[in-house]
């Protein structure tokens, strides 16, 4: 293992250990998806009768939306962890060791990716227990989970960069609460694009959240459109790489302000 890879793993492991020692936290993060899947899903069950959902069960339609939405809402708080590490002095302690700066940031990325993958899988399984049907099978899940991980990476890396730049919890909370609902509603999470008002549909086409949902939903369907999957997946990958690059660059600006 090269040094940078080993260091990335140390930084990942360190956070996985914290995650494993606070199981209550992991359980709490699953409450929201359960509410969306089963309360919201039951309440709006009949909405599929409007048509355009590509399935007869609203739960089938909802699962990819809730998976991606949960990836967004858990990753967008990554910056809070970074802020805490700055305030505690941990980040400065690491920065005065020879550890690679990329490993510091990538440790976060890998950790958040693993947690998002686990969370996504659990939501898929909860859907299955609730009676959802995934005609695309394992192959579909193998697209949905990476798509939600990439989406999570985009927002996790941006959140980390923001945490280092603004250095205030309040700003991060403000921006997150400002973004979460509009981003979710301006996507195909809850409503088939065919039933959305035209202007919303057009905006949704540029929303990375929607890309992840479209890719996952298509792959899980009986007849996947692999062109859709590839274009949306490619877009997500490009955004994720750009966001991670930006967050590593932010170290420099952080160091100017220390």
């Amino acid at each position, binding site marked *: 293992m090269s040094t940078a890879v080993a260091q990335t793993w140390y930084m990942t492991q*360190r956070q996985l250990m914290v995650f494993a020692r606070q199981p209550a936290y992991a359980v709490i993060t699953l409450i929201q998806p359960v509410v969306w899947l089963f309360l919201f899903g039951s309440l709006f069950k009949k909405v599929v009768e409007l048509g355009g959902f590509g399935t007869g069960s609203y739960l089938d339609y909802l699962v990819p939306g809730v998976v991606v939405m949960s990836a967004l809402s858990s990753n967008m708080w990554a910056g809070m962890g970074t802020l805490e590490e700055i305030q505690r002095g941990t980040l400065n302690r690491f*920065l005065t060791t020879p550890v690679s700066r990329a490993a510091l940031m990538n440790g976060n990325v890998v950790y958040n990716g693993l947690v998002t993958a686990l969370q996504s899988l659990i939501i898929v399984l909860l859907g299955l227990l609730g009676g959802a049907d995934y005609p695309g099978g394992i192959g579909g899940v193998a697209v949905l989970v990476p798509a939600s991980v990439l989406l999570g990476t985009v927002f996790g890396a941006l959140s980390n960069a923001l945490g280092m730049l603004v250095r205030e919890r309040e700003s991060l909370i403000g921006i997150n609460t400002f973004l979460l609902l509009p981003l979710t509603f301006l996507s195909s999470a809850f409503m088939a694009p065919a039933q959305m008002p035209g202007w919303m549909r057009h905006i949704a086409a540029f929303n990375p959240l929607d890309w992840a949902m479209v890719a996952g939903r298509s792959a899980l369907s009986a007849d996947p459109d692999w062109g859709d999957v590839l274009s949306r997946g490619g877009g997500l990958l490009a955004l994720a790489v750009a966001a991670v690059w930006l967050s590593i660059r932010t170290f420099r600006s952080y160091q100017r302000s220390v």
Partner: protein
Amino acid sequence: MNSRVPAVEARQLVKTYPGDITALSGLDITVEPGTVFGLLGPNGAGKSTTVKILTTLARPDSGAATVAGHDVLRHPDRVRRAIGVVAQNSGADPVATGRENLQLQGRLHGLKGAALGRRVDELLERFRLSDAARRPVKGYSGGMRRRLDVALGLVHRPEVLFLDEPTTGLDPEARSAMWDEIGRLAGEEGLTILLTMHYLEEADRLAERIAIVDRGRVVVEGSPHSLKGELRGDAVHVELREALGEAGRTVLGGTLGRLPGVHEVLIDGLRISVRADEGAAVVPALLATLERAGVGVAAATVARPSLDDVYLRYTGRRYAEADSADQFVLAGGAR
């Protein structure tokens, strides 16, 4: 005669923070290898900024510095391998155990396997943390955490150890234990320690050489002993009942300065400080003069020269005042 490379050398360091806050305005220090060097000054004097630049965290606006012979700007990686840093907040992971924190720190410095395990055990033992090694750090006392912080800084056997206010926030017992610990470290072969301090008594006890930092530069440097020796005689401090006016200060200052055996007079607010060959001998004349001038005296003390007097002499301010004044600025939103 001395051909050794200094452990730390800083030349004309300047650092300004956004909002035109000058943290350093041309700071110079040289630390010889194997010595304990203290940077002393009130809050906001520039000590922490100096440490941040020397430990590669921050970049100076101008000036140059080397640590263990490596340039902090051109070869930060070499510097990072040579230094141990114990910051004011070292940020040990509270959920991880003491041992896990040390292991990670060792790995980041490239230690692994049995060598890492041995080094971690050695440090746990040495810092009296063996019993607590398997407990999460969040349950540690303040003193234990501080000892772990120092152990973290030593895991890779650095050449130069930076200790930024190592005793701040500790109770008197833990503080005294930390002093002993630093004393022991100082005896280790080859280790150079640069520590910043807030308490004058600490500098006296720990450092072989100190530099007094005031408003971003070094105002005086030397051993605590020689700095105090340069001040001739004792300090006599007189606390007044009421502050003197401008005119009263000038007249009284002149009169007191002419008393036999008196070298210096400094009057500020409610306090008169006089430096005299024989402190006790000038007290009667001093009090008589004040009484004649109708100035009420609350208390008078005679003291051997202290670092507080050194500070006063070189900055024209009393240490405690500079400190609280700067804290006030801090509270006002500035850095």
